[in-house]
């Protein structure tokens, strides 16, 4: 499963000067498509928090963070701040997925589809793995059932490879399981 958004840990600080021999080191966890973008985003956020820029700062480390347990399903809660056409708003969204990167990708696509918010207008404030009891949204809570059972109602049978796809078919498809 390849994800578009990767999670990076970026560590940086301002350059040491005569007044400040050991400036404080700051660490951020961000989502970006690649390392270059992650570093850029790091400086963007750090500038808003501290008096430091990329030109008078140094990057100490950047590592990609991978999912520890990609074979278990978790409920992710994501707090975000996004810019709509009329102003900034905060939001809390929940997703069920196996990896945090998958949940974040779901979030970006859902914000784009439901609110027409593009990826650069979204800032992720916080993410957390939520235990099932504390989930707030019905759409994630409905899957918290150990005896879950449902039929697949409309089942379109696809050709097994895209090569065998045809534009015209001889008969109408049978959608029953």
């Amino acid at each position, binding site marked *: *499963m390849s994800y578009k958004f990767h999670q990076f840990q970026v560590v940086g600080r301002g350059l040491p000067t005569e007044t400040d021999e050991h400036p404080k080191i700051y660490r951020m966890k961000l989502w970006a498509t690649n390392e270059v973008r992650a570093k850029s985003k790091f400086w963007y956020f750090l500038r808003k928090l501290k008096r430091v820029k990329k030109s008078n700062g140094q990057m100490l480390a950047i590592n990609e963070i991978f999912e520890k347990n990609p074979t278990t399903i978790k409920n992710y809660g994501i707090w975000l701040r996004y810019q709509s056409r009329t102003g900034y708003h905060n939001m809390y969204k929940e997703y*069920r997925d*196996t990896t945090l990167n998958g949940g974040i990708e779901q979030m970006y696509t859902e914000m784009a589809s439901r609110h027409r918010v593009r990826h650069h207008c979204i800032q992720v404030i916080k993410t957390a793995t939520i235990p099932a009891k504390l989930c707030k949204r019905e759409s994630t809570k409905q899957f918290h059932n*150990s005896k879950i059972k449902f*039929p*697949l109602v409309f089942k379109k049978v*696809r050709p*097994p490879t895209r090569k065998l796809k045809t534009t015209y078919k001889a008969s109408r498809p049978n959608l029953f399981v």
Partner: protein
Amino acid sequence: MPFKRYVEVGRVALVNYGKDYGKLVVIVDVIDQNRALVDSPDMVRGQMNFKRLTLTDIKIDIKRVPNKKTLVAAMEAADVKNKWEKSSWGRKLIVQKKRASLNDFDRFKIMLAKIKKAGVVRQELAKLKKETTA
């Protein structure tokens, strides 16, 4: 016509698209409306979209997300492999695979066998026709 095959923990499904095409997998948990956590003795547990799965009639008795050992033991207990290979769907798939892997000599042998079979059928038919006219 009520539904007989449900997506549930323990349902055996056939993968009909993608890298694992043709494999039998067990639905081990449901992620959300479109995806399931799926496991099989010879693959790493992973997620799969329901669009890639076709449900079968076989269901095994497991709890949500068993570990690999319990899954393999449950599959042995339910005898999934034999049930599948004996079912008409499973048998058809085996025949399809065999036909696709024939070489020219095998096709020649099949041609001879078909001609022989048709000859025997025609003889019997001729005998029956003679009996009815006589």
